[in-house]
């Protein structure tokens, strides 16, 4: 469904992505793991059109989408939940969802938008109770739910998730991963996931990539990555705990 071919990208003079190639099949959950600064976020930003691609191509369903602006890609079914819960804090939860559903409004009108918001409330009950509150007053977990709900409002086929568990309590992390799994199995949503919590992410993934200083160094099934000693040492931190014990 999604294919990156030798994608290169820079921040000014810093060469961040070096010939990154990866693919995500329809209905798959794929995780990219890697250390801080490896280029995980940049990869997602390049896919969603926020970060200019210097070289290489990005294909969505076989169509070249390199260089298409972010606001247009949303209409093509790509939703990106950026790192750090980038919601519109001084606006109400309801307004946030409305903006998330802009695509629905443009295509089907206000009535359908209301229906969609209602169905989001069914999935995320917390948000219904808080719909008139400012989004910035929500707790971290609720904000992440809102960010996820906003992305889902655009009816995506491909969901890009950037560190959905960052800074959240373990219980909420569990809940978020449960929702991602649910979306994938029920709606056949394709998910490309970035996580620091590599362990939890790989458990719900089909495949994974390891990104190191802007290069893909490893690609394997999620289970294989989970048992790979090199990956364990660098990203899962299990061996270290064994040493301690």
């Amino acid at each position, binding site marked *: 469904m999604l294919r990156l071919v030798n994608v290169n990208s820079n921040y000014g003079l810093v060469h961040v992505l070096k010939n990154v190639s990866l693919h995500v099949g329809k209905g798959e959950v794929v995780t990219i793991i890697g250390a801080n600064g490896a280029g995980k976020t940049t990869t997602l930003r390049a896919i969603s059109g926020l970060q200019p691609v210097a070289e290489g191509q990005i294909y969505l369903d076989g169509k070249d989408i390199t260089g298409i602006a972010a606001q*247009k890609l949303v209409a093509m079914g790509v939703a990106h939940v950026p790192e750090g819960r980038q919601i*519109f804090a001084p606006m109400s939860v309801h307004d946030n969802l409305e903006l998330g559903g*802009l695509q629905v409004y443009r295509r089907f009108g206000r009535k359908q938008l209301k229906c969609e918001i209602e169905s989001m409330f069914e999935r995320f009950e917390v948000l219904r109770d808080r719909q008139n509150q400012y989004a910035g007053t929500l707790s971290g977990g609720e904000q992440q739910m809102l960010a996820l709900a906003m992305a889902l409002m655009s009816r995506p086929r491909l969901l890009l998730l950037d560190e959905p568990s960052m800074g959240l309590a373990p219980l909420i992390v569990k809940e978020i991963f449960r929702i991602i799994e649910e979306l994938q199995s029920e709606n056949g949503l394709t998910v490309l996931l970035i996580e620091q919590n590599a362990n939890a992410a790989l458990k719900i993934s089909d495949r994974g990539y390891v990104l190191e200083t802007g290069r893909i160094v490893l690609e394997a099934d999620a289970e294989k990555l989970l048992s790979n000693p090199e990956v364990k040492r660098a990203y899962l931190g299990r061996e270290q705990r064994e040493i301690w014990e």
Partner: protein
Amino acid sequence: MGIQRGSIYALVAIGFNMIYNSTGIINFAQGEFVVLGGLMMVTLTMNLSLSMPFAFLLSVLFVTIVGFLMERLTINPVREPTVLRLIIITIAVSILLKGLAMCIWGKGSLYMRQFTQTGPIEFFGATIMPQTLWIIGILAAVVSAYILFFNFTLTGKCMRACSINRDSARLCGINDRLMVMLSFALSAGIGAVAGIIITPIIQMDYGRGALLGLKGFGAAVLGGLGNSGGAVVAGLLIGILEAMSGGYISSHYMDAIALIVMLFVLFVRPGGIFGKSEEIRLKEF
């Protein structure tokens, strides 16, 4: 007298805020929008003798188009927009517009009759010109329309979303460039309204833009950049302060006193009276 001028500063400040919120820059051509609105209104009513409401709409429309063209021709094509570059462009546009206005309308100040031809009204011992009521009424109407637009329409919410977090807004499918264009057009329209309602009182000429713009900027800063409620209060405050200092101290220092107060506030509270200090640290200047 103070409230009249204050209302104008408030409207100019709202225009500043609108563009500041969508692009992060100060549009120094805002004063020129005010002048163009006023001058156009004079031509339409006094020379072409159109009816007041019709001329009003036409002038606002005209300046809105000027704002739209300004964004399309000078802001949008910039390849790497930085705050400083864009600000310098707005200064250039303001000089250009001032020059054009001088060529078209000449150097003299133009007279325009008041909106309604009734005499002054007595009100608790104060004498009020009917035009003052018009000004206050129109300010109230513009502010309410502004609030309704930004809080209850989807387009308004999109514009706010864009100013809060541009990347997130784009990920929702909002065309940020379109929002910038819209903010220029709208703020030009608001500037025109200000120019039109003040012209019967101060007699418009081509060179007034700079000072009107500066005072409006003062109001915007005083109220906290980007905070439009604050801008209205601060605008009225500056206007009243000016009138008071004109009456009690000397009318020669009228302009200076308002600006001195503004400077003082900036020394003590750089975020403006209503601005939050944490917020100002995050802004670009």
